[in-house]
Structures are given as structure tokens and as C-alpha cells.
């Protein structure tokens, strides 16, 4: 009985299952019927229509590349623009023998070995079916000569293209960057961001500098043309057209003339300079020397020029202002003094006696002052004016690393400034926690001593030091530094002004700020370390010199500039703001291997300040900075 029920259930179950299966079969047949109806519609009913599209006149969707946006300086001077020119291009798959074609071509138009090398490089990294440039900037005569012979060269054609030009060349190279051909990495990145469609037809993309950071603004929107092409692929008729919209114009806060003067003032020195309007964070000049010729990169740099740039001991490809990390040296002292005042560790009146060195209690190690025999009795004001090391060894020790870390990071040390350029480095502001992480060691009292004069683990970028100086100049109110002031739409009169918001306010005690500022003014007065900076200036400059050691000096040995290899000489720093009572410009100058801040860096700063504040253009530039008086650091 039981068995019977079970069996019956089993059969019923199978019956129901097969019923369901039949529904499934019906479902599948319906789907396939839908497909067949669709095929019937496309391939029979609409066949003529698609036949027309595909066979006799194919519709080709042609992207129209937008013009790249311009870059202007704050006064409307053009820093990057486009011009049209002719290029000679080869589609490798359509030629009969690439080598032979190029040799044949060289009888008509000049093709240098450099062009050939560049072509080879393009060939190696090409995307499918692309035509590759063998020559650019053809003259009208060359164009005419080739056009007459074109039938002999299948797969070779002349194209009119827009080229990017940077009138200021090397001077602006680290600021503007450059555009270059889109490579496989770029393609992947574009696809990841779902931008690939907008770059169909585009050959170039911003690679570094502002060209990279503002790629989205500068590129513009690609247009589309639907054209009928005949069986040979030639366009017969335009069916529809969506025009491209040009990229937006960037108006920078940079003053091109100021930048030019700054670059020239460096003479033969390598280094960096950043000038900021402390009232709003606008960057007025952004120099990294040496620069490079950006036009070399646009169509792929040839291997020879690349090697020259890449292997040069002057590292012209290194953006020193943004990425160079140096010990701040004595330029850190005004910030240390603010820390000392803030925590009440040292009152302004407290005087120390400087024997020329500092020792930690219970240690024999001598931390030397730069001046043999010391500065005698020194209070806070004098400590800045004469840049007394002994004072700051003591101050740092009394503050301790935690307070130093807290206060200096308030000024933005050890952090990226957030300027609108990619690739910024963050410097290094040491802390107990950092040392444990990095070296698995605890922090020693000796570590703190040298941090006090900016020589320990400390590293800053010129950009950072410039930002901190601007914050100091603006009474502790910080504006994030930025290079682009305004984005103008190319099509409408629309323009977006990028207004910088106040980043933070350190809320200085007025008395503390006043003391440090007065001391910094005295630095540029007789008796200070940078007399040359303000000699004869009708406005007051607040400044501070600094020296960043390149090689360490042994205990007991002396540093003698004339005996040291030029590239091992100290780097010279100078930070300044002016006019001292109401600063409208703050800047930092770094002259690599420049020796003393007062001697080399301060005169460079002075020329920039004179132009900015007085409109004075320096006379045919003297060979940088003869040493004046007893300036030292």
C-alpha cells in the first residue's frame, strides 16, 4: 500500500516536472521565434536600407577633434596655444614596404635621422590602423612637391593638424608641462573613467604640469560627423554634424614677466622659486631651473634627446619647486620662534649666552653654531637677525619634538600644499611616531636639537616653504596656493573664477607676530644676514636666509667653501615677504649649491620684488650676486 502511494507520487511528480519542462520548451521556442522575426525584419524587410548603408555608401562616423584650450597668464599673455600646420603621415599597413617608402620619401622632403628614430618609436607603441607622423611642420613647398607625387605613395598622406606651442619654452616647462601622444596606459585610464568616446580621434593628452592637471578643462568635447564614404573610403557627403566644442581657456595667476625675470635672475644657478600672493594664495611665479624644451615631447621625444635630458647631472626633468625635497636650514627659525612664543617656552626677553656651541646635559657632543666663538648674548629678536644656531638648539630641546611637530604641521610642513598641479611630494616633518615607523627606533633628544635649525630629518619642498611663508606673511591666515585663476569657456562668454577659500587661521597673537616680523625686517638691514636684499629699497622686506647642507661635516672639521666640489656646496635659501607691514607678495628662493642664502638667494628675490612692487625691470643681468660684506648664515 505504502509503496503504491510512493510510486504514484513519484509518477505524479515526474508528470508535473515534465509539464514544467514543456513550458520551458515553449519559452525557448518563443525566444528563437522572436529572433527569427527580428532577422526577417532586418535581413528581408529592411535589407535594402542596411544594404545601402553598408555596401554602396558606407556611413562612417568621423570624430572631429576639438581645439585644445589656451593657457594665458594673469595679464592675458599667451603661454600655450595652437597653430595649424602640415604633417606627413604614413599608415604602415597600407604601404608596400615601410623602409622603401621612407627612403623614397626622403628624396622629396627632408627626413632627418631624428625623424626616423621618432617614427620607429611611434611604430612600436602605435594603436591599430593609426597613421603615424614621419615629418611635421612641412613647408608649403614641401607640401606642393609631395602632392604632385602622391600617387606613388600608397598609405602616405598629408594632414593638416593643430600643433601645440609653448612660446616661453623652458621658462614655463615645469609649470605648464606638455601634451604628448596618447599611449596604451592613457587609453586604459580613459576607458576606466569612461572617457574613451570623447577621445576618439584625439591624438594628444596632457602628460605633466597644468596640461595634465586641467586635462578635463582643456580637452573640449569631441564632435561627430556622419559621412557617406565610397568604396575607397573617401568622404562623399556629410549627413549630419555635431560640432565639437573647444576646450576651455585657463587664465593663470602667474605673471609671465615676473616669471621671466625670476628665471633670468637665477643666472647659471639651478634651483627653484615660488612667489605667492599671501592674501589669496595666487601663485605669481613658479620656477624650477633648469627647465627643458616642452616641444620635444609633443610628438614623442627621440631617444637621443631623451637620454640627454634624463642623464643630465642637472636633472632638468625634475620639478624642483614641486617635488624637490631639501632640508629647510635656518629658514625654519622664524617658525620655530613662533612655536616658542606660542607655547610660552621662551619669552622674547629671555637672553641666552652663546659660546659658539650647544651641548645636551650629560653629553659631550657639541652642536656648533655657524659662527665660531658664538654671538654673545642673544634674545629672540637677535636670534633671528643673526640666525643664531645655539639659541634654536636650546629652544628645540625645551619645546620637545611633539610641540615642534604640532606647531610646524600647522604651517603645512610635512603635508602636500594641495596646489593644482599633480605629482606634489609632501616633504618630511619628523615625529616620534614617524621615526618608530621608519627606523624602528625611539626618538632621541639629540634628534630634536638639529630639527631646531632645520637640519635634522626635516625636508621641505620649495612649494611648501613658500606656502608657509605666505601664511606667516598673512598673519596666520592661509589660502591654498593655486595657479589657475579663471576658466573661460571658449564658446560662450561664460567664465568661472576660481576663488580660493581660506584654508585655516592659525590665530597668531599680535605681539608674537609683530616680534618675528620686525626681526625678519632687521635681517635685511645692516647687521642682518641678508643686507643685500634690501639695500636701497623704498619698501621694507622681511626675510630669512637659510643654508641646506648637501654633505655632512665631521665633528671638529670646518666647512670651507673653496675646498668643496661645486656640487657638494650648500644650497642657499631665502624666504621673504614685502612690503613688511602689508605683504602683497611672499616668496621662497632656493639656489642649489649657492652657498649662503644672503649672498646668492636674496639678490634673486630682490629683483623679483622690485619688479612686482615697483615695476622695475632689471638691467641686463649681471652675473649673479657678487658677495657683499660679511654675510653668512
Amino acid at each position, binding site marked *: 500500500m505504502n509503496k503504491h502511494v510512493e510510486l504514484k507520487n513519484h509518477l505524479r511528480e515526474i508528470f508535473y516536472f515534465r509539464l514544467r*519542462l514543456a513550458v*520551458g520548451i515553449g519559452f525557448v521556442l518563443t525566444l528563437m521565434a522572436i529572433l527569427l522575426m527580428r532577422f526577417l525584419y532586418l*535581413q528581408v524587410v529592411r535589407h535594402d536600407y542596411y*544594404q545601402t548603408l553598408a555596401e554602396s555608401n558606407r*556611413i562612417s562616423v568621423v570624430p572631429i577633434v576639438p581645439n585644445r584650450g589656451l593657457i594665458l597668464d594673469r595679464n592675458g599673455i599667451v603661454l600655450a596655444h595652437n597653430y595649424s600646420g602640415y604633417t606627413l603621415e604614413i599608415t604602415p599597413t597600407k604601404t608596400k614596404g615601410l623602409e622603401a617608402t621612407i627612403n623614397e620619401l626622403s628624396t622629396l622632403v627632408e627626413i632627418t635621422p631624428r625623424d626616423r628614430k621618432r617614427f620607429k618609436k611611434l611604430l612600436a607603441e602605435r594603436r591599430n590602423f593609426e597613421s603615424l607622423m614621419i615629418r611635421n611642420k612641412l613647408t608649403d613647398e614641401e607640401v606642393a612637391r609631395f602632392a604632385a607625387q602622391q600617387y606613388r605613395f600608397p598609405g602616405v598622406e598629408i594632414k593638416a593638424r593643430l600643433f601645440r606651442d609653448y612660446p616661453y619654452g623652458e621658462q614655463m616647462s615645469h609649470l605648464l608641462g606638455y601634451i604628448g601622444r596618447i599611449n596604451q596606459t592613457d587609453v586604459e585610464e580613459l576607458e576606466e573613467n569612461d572617457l574613451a*568616446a570623447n577621445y576618439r580621434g584625439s591624438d594628444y593628452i596632457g602628460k605633466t604640469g597644468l596640461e595634465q592637471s586641467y586635462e578635463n578643462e582643456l580637452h573640449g568635447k569631441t564632435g561627430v560627423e556622419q559621412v557617406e564614404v565610397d568604396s575607397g*573610403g573617401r568622404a562623399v557627403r556629410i549627413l549630419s554634424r555635431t560640432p565639437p566644442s573647444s576646450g576651455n581657456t585657463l587664465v593663470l595667476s602667474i605673471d609671465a614677466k615676473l616669471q621671466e625675470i625670476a628665471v633670468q635672475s637665477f643666472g647659471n644657478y639651478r634651483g627653484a622659486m615660488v612667489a605667492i600672493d599671501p592674501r589669496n594664495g595666487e601663485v605669481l611665479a613658479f620656477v624650477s631651473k633648469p627647465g627643458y624644451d616642452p616641444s620635444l615631447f609633443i610628438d614623442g621625444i627621440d631617444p637621443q634627446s631623451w637620454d640627454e635630458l634624463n642623464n643630465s647631472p642637472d636633472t632638468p626633468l625634475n620639478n624642483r619647486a614641486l617635488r624637490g625635497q631639501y632640508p629647510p636650514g635656518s629658514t625654519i627659525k622664524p617658525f620655530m620662534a613662533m612655536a616658542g612664543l606660542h607655547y610660552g617656552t621662551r619669552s622674547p626677553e629671555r637672553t641666552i649666552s652663546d659660546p659658539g656651541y650647544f651641548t645636551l646635559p650629560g653629553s659631550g657632543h657639541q652642536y656648533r653654531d655657524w659662527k665660531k666663538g658664538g654671538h654673545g648674548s642673544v634674545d629672540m629678536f637677535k636670534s633671528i637677525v643673526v640666525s643664531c644656531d645655539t639659541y634654536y638648539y636650546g629652544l628645540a630641546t625645551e619645546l620637545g619634538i611633539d610641540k615642534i611637530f604640532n606647531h610646524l604641521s600647522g604651517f603645512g610642513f610635512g603635508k602636500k600644499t594641495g596646489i593644482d598641479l599633480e605629482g606634489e611630494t609632501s616633504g618630511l616633518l619628523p615625529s616620534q611616531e614617524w621615526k618608530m615607523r621608519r627606523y624602528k627606533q625611539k626618538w632621541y633628544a639629540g634628534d630634536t636639537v638639529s630639527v631646531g635649525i632645520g637640519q635634522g630629518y626635516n625636508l621641505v619642498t620649495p612649494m611648501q616653504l613658500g606656502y608657509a611663508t605666505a601664511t606667516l606673511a598673512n598673519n596666520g591666515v592661509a589660502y591654498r596656493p593655486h595657479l589657475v585663476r579663471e576658466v573661460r569657456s571658449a564658446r560662450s562668454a561664460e567664465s568661472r573664477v576660481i576663488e580660493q577659500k581660506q584654508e585655516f587661521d592659525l590665530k597668531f597673537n599680535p605681539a608674537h607676530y609683530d616680534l618675528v616680523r620686525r626681526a625678519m625686517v632687521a635681517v635685511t638691514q645692516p647687521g642682518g644676514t641678508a643686507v643685500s636684499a634690501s639695500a636701497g629699497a623704498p619698501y621694507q622686506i622681511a626675510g630669512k636666509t637659510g643654508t641646506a647642507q648637501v654633505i655632512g661635516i665631521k665633528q671638529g672639521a670646518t666647512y670651507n667653501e673653496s675646498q668643496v666640489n661645486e656640487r657638494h656646496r650648500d644650497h642657499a635659501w631665502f624666504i621673504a615677504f614685502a612690503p613688511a607691514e602689508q605683504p602683497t607678495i611672499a616668496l621662497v628662493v632656493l639656489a642649489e649649491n649657492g652657498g649662503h642664502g644672503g649672498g646668492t638667494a636674496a639678490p634673486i628675490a630682490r629683483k623679483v620684488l622690485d619688479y612686482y612692487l615697483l615695476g622695475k625691470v632689471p638691467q641686463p643681468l649681471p652675473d649673479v650676486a657678487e658677495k657683499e660684506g660679511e654675510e653668512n648664515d
Partner: protein
Amino acid sequence: MTRRQLWLRFTAHIDPPLMLGISLLMLTSLIVLFSADNASFGQPLKQLANITIGLACMWIIANLPLHYLMRTAIPIYTMGLVLLIGVALFGEISHGARRWLNLGVMTIQPSELMKIGVPLMMAWYFEKHEATLTAKNYIVATLLLLVPVGLIARQPDLGTALLISASGFYVLFLAGLSWRVMGGLFVAALASAPFMWSMLHDYQRHRILMLFDPEQDALGKGYHTIQGMIAVGSGGILGKGYLDGTQTHLDFLPERTTDFIFAVYSEEFGLIGNMILIGLFLFVIGRGFIITANASTYFTRLMAGSITLTFATYAFVNMGMVSGILPVVGVPLPLVSYGGTSMLTLLLGFGMLMSIETHKKLNKT
């Protein structure tokens, strides 16, 4: 043992009609790939390697007795789930989606594994509770489906998520989910559509919108649809002839060896060719249904039915996408598109069908 005996032993668990059907489809794959790859042997040879590996794995599965097959359900499903969670946490991002897991030696896409793992697990679960099926069991089975689908949808890989949902749904359907519940689910799905829409990624919405007006994104995704329809439509009744497809050979067709291979086929062989291809698919599907109907246990019935219906769904979705009635979701044409992973997954499925068919006599006793 004579050579003949050896051969019989070797082919004992291969189902001849099914083998014939899939062989013809794979042969079609090689022929079309030769054309799609501009008359070169590059891709066809690589595809041949894929097929060889796939067939070897199929043979192994076909020779596994059914209780072994059932025993793999939990390990495969669990592994797939762990890997999916791994992807969500450590996966590599490519094209804005997190689908791949780098295991050091190779990168894998765990969602592929789940195409087999989910129906396998659900069929196993139903088999285990066969005697006492209640509403609770259906809910648990649904959860077994929804968890991996949710993870895959999050990657986001909507196409695969929907297809795995379909294969899981087929198991539920064949296991006797009541019509009333299915009706309710259908209504609920319709009602939640606006909410789902808001959950989609921009590019996914884009693809759906584009279906209604491909012209509007003629440079981007719409380009695929437009060129696919032109290829199919211009093929006409008889087609342009092998190796003579202009859309194919003038580089108008994107992804023509993978997702859009059907456009190449359709352009060159026309409506007649399409009917033959659909006939081939129906032959394979039909054999699958026969195996399903004759399957001896609850587990094998569910599994065979799900594999067959899923195969049919893949074919429909791909051809529908190329001919412009479904959005471009990135589903290959089963057994025809170039690709090692999908070939392997499909042939593993066919291996199970063969095992189900050829082991049933043993099982019945």
C-alpha cells in the same frame, strides 16, 4: 582489449547526438573566427586550444558518476562565494568594475565559476529536501541564489548577474515554484524597476537608454549596436559570402571575434545561415531537454534542465544584443565566440549533461 573495445570504453560516457551538435557549433566558431580575424589562423588556432582543453574537462566530468557530481556542489559553491567576497575586498579594478582576483599566478573571474556553482548548489539543496519541500525550502534556495548574484551585481557586472539569476530561477521553476509566487515576483520586479534604475551605474543606464536611440551615442557604445545592425541587415537572405563581409573586413565591426561574432556570421551567411545556426542551437537544446526529461533523480532533472535553459538564454541574449533588441551586456555567443573561460564553463555544463544521461541506467538499479 582490442582497439575497438578501447574506443568503446573511451566514448562510453559521451552522448553522441549532443556531441554532434556541439561539435558543429565549435566548427562554426573556427570557420567564422578565420574570417573575423581577417583570414588569419591566429585566433582560430588559439580557439582550437580552448576547445581542446574544454573537451578534455568535459570528458572527465562526463565520466564522473552522479554522486561525485553532487558532492562537488558545496565545495564549488563555497569556493565561488569566498572568491566573490575576495573580489569585493581585494579585487582588481578594470574598466571601472571590480571583477578579477589576482592569485599571484593567475587572475580569475569568480563570477564565471558561479555560472555552474549556483544551479549546482540549488539543485543539490532541493534534492536533499526532496521528500519534504515546503515554502521555507524555496526561500532558502532563493537566498542561495541572491547572495552571489548580489555580490556580482555590485562589482558591477549586471550582465553576468542577470544570467546567473536566470539559471537559478530555472532551477526554482523546475523544482515547482508555485505559479502564484512567480506572478507575484513578476509584479514586484515591475514595481521595483524605478528603484533598480536609481541603483544602476551611469554606464549601465546609458546602455539601456542607448538601445532606444543608438544614434545619440554614435561614437561610444551606440556604435556597437549600429554597426551590428548594419552587418546583420546588409547580409540579406543569402549573405555576402564567406570572407566577403564588408562590415567585417573594413573594420567597422567592434569586438568581432568575441561578443559580436554573430554579426560577422550573419553578414556573410545571411538569413539562411541564421536559420541553420538557430537550427543547430535548437538541436543541442532539444537534446538537452530529452536528457532532462529522462533524468533519473530530482537533482539531475533540475541540473540538466537549468543547464539547457541557460544555454538557450545565452544564445538568445547574444543574438538579440547584436541584432539590436537587447542592450549590449557583454555576453558571448555560446560555443562560437572566442574565449577560453566561457568555452570551459559551457563544456563543463555539457559534461554534466552527458554524465546525467550515461549514468542514469546504473543509478536506477
